[in-house]
């Protein structure tokens, strides 16, 4: 089994990470449009999107069946399916894969939930190392505000209600997001994440991303004539 950092593929993998409300999905969508327009073959892969695992996750969330360990393992199962189905084949074929959330999401959330840091990293060791992993960093109050104002009802696991920190969803969510942010911050140097200041304007963040990404792209573009 090939493990993290050892895969050698002609394609490129760019991932976005960050707390909820950091604006990463918006940025990834803009990136997708740009790369498509430039003529690159681009594939998009989202967290929690495995057709094999989706129903199980949905049911478990609804019925509150998870413990921190099974929450972690089922999400790893989902991620494994994404890796085997949506990530490795296009990378082998030389395409660009854009991933909305990657293993760092699991590392941040699962460790915040109390899973062992080294164990979670072992579980995900089969993952392909991204070409660039962007971490959209927003201060805790900004991120929490963006989510809470846009969504009156926080979901049970999203708010970390399973951990019993608070009976108030909003308070629990804030505690949980704080722990997640701490985990992200320590991963910046551990995994060499590229930090993007998510408080800046959307246009400025996008310019920064495109500049970094273009350094990793082959000059020869497909499907486009100049």
């Amino acid at each position, binding site marked *: *089994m090939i*493990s993290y950092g050892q895969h050698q593929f002609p394609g490129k993998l760019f991932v976005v990470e960050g707390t909820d409300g950091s604006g990463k999905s918006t940025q990834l969508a803009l990136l997708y449009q740009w790369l498509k327009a430039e003529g690159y073959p681009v594939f998009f892969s989202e967290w929690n999107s495995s057709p*094999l695992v989706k129903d*199980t996750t949905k049911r478990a969330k609804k019925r509150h069946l*998870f413990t921190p360990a*099974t929450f972690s*393992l*089922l999400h790893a199962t989902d991620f494994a399916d994404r890796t085997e189905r949506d990530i490795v084949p296009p990378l082998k074929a030389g395409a660009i894969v854009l991933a909305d959330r990657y293993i760092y999401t699991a590392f941040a959330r699962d460790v915040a939930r109390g899973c062992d840091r080294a*164990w979670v990293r072992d579980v995900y060791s089969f993952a392909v190392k991204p070409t660039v992993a962007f971490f959209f960093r927003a201060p805790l109050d900004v991120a929490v505000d963006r989510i809470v104002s846009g969504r009156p009802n926080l979901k049970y696991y999203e708010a970390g209600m399973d951990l019993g920190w608070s009976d108030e969803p909003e308070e629990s969510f804030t505690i949980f997001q704080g722990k997640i942010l701490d985990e992200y911050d320590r991963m910046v140097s551990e995994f060499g994440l590229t930090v993007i200041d998510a408080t800046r304007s959307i246009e400025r963040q996008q310019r920064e991303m495109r500049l970094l990404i273009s350094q990793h792209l082959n000059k020869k573009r497909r499907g486009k004539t100049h």
Partner: protein
Amino acid sequence: MGRSTHIALLKTWLESRGHAVLDTGMTRSILAGRGIKEAKQGHTLGRLTMQLFYATDFIDRLENEMLPALRAGFVVLTDRYIYSAMARAELRGIDTAWIRSIYSMALVPDAVFYLRISSPQQLVERVLSSGRGFDYWESGMDLHLGEDFYDSFIEYQKRMLKVFDRMSTEYGFHVLNASRTVRSVASDLRRAVTKLIDEPATPAEDNVSKLQVIRDKSTPAKSAAKSTDLTKEALS
């Protein structure tokens, strides 16, 4: 003749002797059992995804069934444990260190009973008498080992037998020749289980320490017998 028969017999017998028994088995978790069965209906279940789905099923049963039962003083009988999962993973070229680290939170069983069948041909007889025919996963069809289910089954089970035999030494399985009558296998099982329940258990850490399995300190239960064999190995 296989695992489920023996577990059922053992359970009845233990209960008749006044022991509370929990029986569980692979893919029976509330969390992931159904999902695994559905995923196996298709042809898109990848080898990494498969291992993690099974691990989810196992940990769900460990945390929500086996541990609470052991704490309450039950005898836990499980139809296959982490060894079957590790054997399947190994046959699929999965890194054994990886699979072991995933299962590192498993408990060391008080005993592992390996119901051993000496040849794949004997297993074929069971498949035929079951009336269900060959199963895709039980035949290792995802590994492309032969030109049809039969050839693939023979090759897959041959490899499985080899891995189990090696594990048997590595982890100190209690080997039972399962080619004999149900009655004689069952009586051997009872004798072995009686010994475990009546005599204080000797820790099996020496055998399993390589796996870094954690023994739950709060477990007061005397016995957690466990049964595994090759019959219907990649099935269910």
